[in-house]
């Protein structure tokens, strides 16, 4: 009997629970298996067709899927009108950067470009046995329907998915796989289908992130992104504030630069899509979504939101406290109201609704995390304040009752879940970077497992949203740049959470199944008794390059956990920021590296106390003298990096020079003081902070 704090996101695409992946010692579906299910086995391989392949979406997805399907000998047929501008050729340089020229050439060779006139499919298409059509043609419903009929008449068995950004599946008559910008690299796909399909599982098996959403107009991403764009435009209409400055304040408040994003994508096309999305939403849900006259005008004229370069803004805009509060109402009010609608309609798993904004629309924190922290009353007050500013929005699509469940596990565990089978607990992290939300949710997960009597656990990514672990969310560090005490609080809080992996459970196993585990996330996970990774995973402490002193005990716990012979390697990693592959880190940073299935089994065995043959690294709990030689270091490259190296070395020396109990304070003080130093404030995080928050 498996119990979970809340539904596992993998279950929404038919792939079960995470604990089953460890119990079974394999992934629920492998890429080869998924490819066979969609395209047939090697003897009768079919092909993929992308129509509208020269457009922004089509070209991006041709590259993304083409590069992933090429190893399986799946041809990608890129279909478009003969006169369509070449969007595919433009992708070549990006491919070459990612895969090298030879790799890029191989991928391009696998892409078959065919032209058609919109009425009759090219004869040679039959020879490629199309099995899966990804439709990326213009957002005109009748055009799309005719397109599907054309394909179905010719290839009755073909699976069709539309990349539409707005039309529901019920209107289209086909499933939806709506990808997020930038299309060549963003892995998120909002999928709409009655049951989890082989197509969706193929996307997952190829390393992408399909997210199941309900069949509504404009799904989740476009409601959020178009919604924040609309809110920004409405604020500009009400106050005259120019787009560039609204963007700055919006970025400070929630994260995105929605108006700049439209210019970056292409003002006319992007604004048309936003208008189209809002227009249909307004028809369905009323004035909350009514596009502004400015949006309507720009989708026609293509006039950019930002001024041209030779008219870079001259007159700055500022806001006093009252104006700032009103700005919050203008921006957050509609976003909260739109979110209430999506919750009311149960548009998706709460973790997904929350994550989509972060992963696809630059939200610094997911919209549900923001709502959760604000609390129901403040959220309702904000929406009502917005209604006073824009009374028409009050008319419909406001569901304050949707926030009543805010205390439940679905709301409280947006980023971290826990499952157990009565013996082993699996804690999954669905966010690639660490912040206070993740920290609090980790604690609740640990508390829940303890309350359930679980003594052994595996800490891992969620095999879904977090395909890697990149470290601390640097925005979480912003307040510490100007306040040493806040830095001490932050580092001590996160470190104390990490220490629970050492103190609260009999056995803990950290599992790294993604591409990399860096910085704060690595510091967290090294607190586990054992570390297991897939053998091409990479580890590193990039803090020195930012620069910052690792704050979650990276400067001593990793060293204490390493046998004396490996300590110099750990210290060298800390001082240089250089990464190491899992297979090269066995014995001094991790305990086992291997292919995915083997790594899964090993983690499960270790959690069950069956780690025979795997040497355990003991944690040095006492004080010791860190007098080790790391060898010659590469050039620091900047005085700030040089300063950070000295600070990290001092932190490591001092923290190791005390016992484990005192080391926490020593490490936190070193880290906090460096964060508040000029070196950090002038570095990457400080610059980003100034750019984002000091406007």
């Amino acid at each position, binding site marked *: 009997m498996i119990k979970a704090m809340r539904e596992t996101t993998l279950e929404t695409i038919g792939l079960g629970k995470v604990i089953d992946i460890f119990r079974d010692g394999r992934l629920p579906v492998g890429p080869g298996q998924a490819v066979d299910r969609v395209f047939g086995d090697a003897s009768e391989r079919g092909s993929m067709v992308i129509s509208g392949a020269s457009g922004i979406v089509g070209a991006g997805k041709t590259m993304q899927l083409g590069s992933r399907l090429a190893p399986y000998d799946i041809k990608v047929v890129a279909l478009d009108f003969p006169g369509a501008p070449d969007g595919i050729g433009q992708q070549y340089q990006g491919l070459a950067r990612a895969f090298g020229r030879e790799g890029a050439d191989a991928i391009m060779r696998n892409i078959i470009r065919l032209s058609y006139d919109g009425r009759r499919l090219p004869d040679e298409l039959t020879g490629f046995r199309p099995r899966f059509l990804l439709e990326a043609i213009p957002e005109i419903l009748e055009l799309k329907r005719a397109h599907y009929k054309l394909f179905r008449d010719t290839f009755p068995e073909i699976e069709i998915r539309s990349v539409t950004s707005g039309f529901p599946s019920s209107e289209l008559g086909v499933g939806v796989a709506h990808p997020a910008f930038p299309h060549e690299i963003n892995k998120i796909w909002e999928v709409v289908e009655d049951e989890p399909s082989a197509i969706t599982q193929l996307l997952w098996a190829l390393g992408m992130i399909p997210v199941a959403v309900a069949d509504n107009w404009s799904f989740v991403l476009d409601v959020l992104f178009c919604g924040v764009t609309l809110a920004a435009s409405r604020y500009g*209409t*009400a*106050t*005259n*504030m*120019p787009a560039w400055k609204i963007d700055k304040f919006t970025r400070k408040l929630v994260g995105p630069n929605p108006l700049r994003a439209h210019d970056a994508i292409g003002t006319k096309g992007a604004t048309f899509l936003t208008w189209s999305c809002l227009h249909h939403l307004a028809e369905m849900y009323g004035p909350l979504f009514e596009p502004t*006259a400015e949006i309507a005008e720009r989708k026609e004229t293509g*006039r950019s939101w930002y*001024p041209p370069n030779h*008219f*870079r*803004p*001259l*007159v*700055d*805009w*500022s806001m006093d406290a009252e104006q700032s509060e009103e700005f919050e109402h203008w921006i957050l009010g509609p976003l909260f109201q739109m979110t209430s609608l999506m919750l009311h309609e149960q548009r998706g798993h709460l973790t997904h609704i929350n994550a989509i904004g972060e992963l696809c629309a630059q939200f610094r924190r997911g919209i549900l995390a923001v709502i959760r922290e604000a609390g129901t009353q403040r959220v309702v007050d904000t929406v009502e304040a917005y209604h006073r500013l824009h009374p028409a929005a009050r008319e419909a699509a406001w569901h304050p009752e949707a926030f009543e469940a805010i205390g439940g596990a679905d709301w409280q565990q947006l980023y971290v879940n826990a499952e157990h089978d009565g013996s082993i607990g699996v804690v999954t992290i669905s966010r690639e970077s660490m912040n206070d939300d993740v920290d609090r949710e980790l604690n609740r997960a640990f508390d829940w497992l303890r309350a359930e009597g679980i003594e052994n656990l595996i800490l891992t990514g969620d095999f879904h949203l977090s395909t890697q672990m990149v470290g601390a969310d640097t925005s979480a560090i912003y307040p510490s740049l100007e306040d040493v005490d806040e830095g001490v609080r932050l580092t001590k809080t996160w470190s104390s959470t990490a220490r629970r992996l050492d103190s609260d459970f009999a056995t803990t196993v950290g599992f790294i199944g993604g591409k990399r585990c860096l910085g704060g996330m690595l510091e967290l996970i090294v607190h586990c008794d054992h570390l297991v990774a897939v053998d091409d995973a990479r580890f590193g402490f990039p803090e020195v390059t930012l620069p910052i002193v690792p704050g979650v005990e990276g400067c001593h716990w990793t060293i204490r956990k390493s046998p004396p012979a490996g300590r110099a390697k750990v210290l060298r990693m800390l001082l240089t920021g250089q990464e190491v592959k899992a297979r090269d880190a066995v014995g001094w940073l991790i305990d086992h590296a291997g292919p995915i299935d083997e790594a899964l089994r090993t983690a499960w065995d270790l959690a069950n106390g069956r780690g025979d043959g795997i040497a355990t690294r003991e944690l040095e709990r006492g004080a010791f003298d860190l007098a080790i030689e790391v060898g010659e270091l590469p050039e620091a490259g900047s005085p700030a990096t040089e300063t950070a190296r000295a600070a990290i070395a001092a932190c490591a020396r001092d923290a190791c020079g005390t016992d484990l109990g005192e080391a926490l304070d020593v490490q936190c003080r070193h880290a906090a003081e460096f964060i508040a130093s000029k070196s950090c404030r002038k570095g990457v995080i400080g610059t980003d902070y100034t750019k984002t928050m000091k406007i």
Partner: protein
Amino acid sequence: MADALRMFPRARIPYGTWGSSYFPAWQTSALAEVNIGQFAGEAMNRILGLRKVPRTELGSLVIGSTIPWHWKFWNAPLVASCLGHRVPGYHVEQACATGLQATLLAGAEIETQAHDVVGVLTFDRTSDSPVGVFPERRAHVRTQAISDVWDNFGFDPATGNAMMAAAGLTARKYGVERSEVDDVAFLRYQQYFEAKESGFLDRVLVPLDVLNVAGRPLGRIDDDFGVRKMSLGAMRAMNELDTCVTGGTQTHASDGMACLMVTTKERVADLSPRPEIDIEFVAKAESRTDPSLMPEAPAFAVRELLERTGLTMDDMAVVKNHNPFAVNDVVFRKVLDYDWAKMNRTGCPLVWGHPQGPTLTRVVIEALEEAVDLGGGYVLVFGCAAGDVGIAAVLRVS
């Protein structure tokens, strides 16, 4: 008021929808670094935002400036683009009369029903004025280069005299005493600083933060930089540059912008925070006097205006003028028999400078604010302009 005393019966200036930048003296502020047309457009947008007037209310824009600026060819439509609202419009220019002429022309636009809401946006940058190169085949110097501000100040091609010479000639014509000119100038400084300290100017002038190309602060325009308190003794001690003209009794070049709106009576309620205040156009007059006697021209324009309307100086609640020389005000007393102490109670261009295009716009705005403080009445605004021209207009606040 009888229609005979309504110049544009349809047109109104909506109270409180106006604003001006401070006028920093030339080369003393970030305004010396900017494209003033772009700055003016963005600044008007900011001012309208602060006044809670959506820029989209504008149907047209009358811009006024006198010194060429980069991309001037593109005129009001370009400035409107910088403002963020693509409306049509045109440019008007009459040296220091520009601000008043632009306001009156906006009234005419309303009166002719061409538009419902017209913006008036005037601006100039005297700092680093452009140098024009003019091929002149009939001149013995085949090509002439003219620094737009200073070379024009120094030479009226119609008379061959400088502006300052006109002030001296007029002072001599009227037998103006230096001591009275110093007294006028000293009072004008006192009036300005009293208005400033009372907070009156805060209702007119808007601090503006100017950015450089990297988006970082270039400077804050929050004062009429270069204006400092003057003692009467210091005023009297100054060297005379021409008859009755000293550094203290003449204005100085400055940079800035000022804007207001003109609309129909019906639309005032949509735009003004105090729609109960009614501001009407009453009458206008212009005159051109004899060569190099520019300081007397405004007095003649006012005299003509009074004769035409039947109004007297005693009817005026507020009297305010553009006075590049204190001589102007003394001559005005002599021609109209009007006590100069009753004029310019909140300051004037003699003190806060002379950016040309927006000068009389700021005078109009300050005059209207003063009239509102006084409970309404006739507002007389007048001034001189290059070419020995005087302009005068009466507005009525009720």
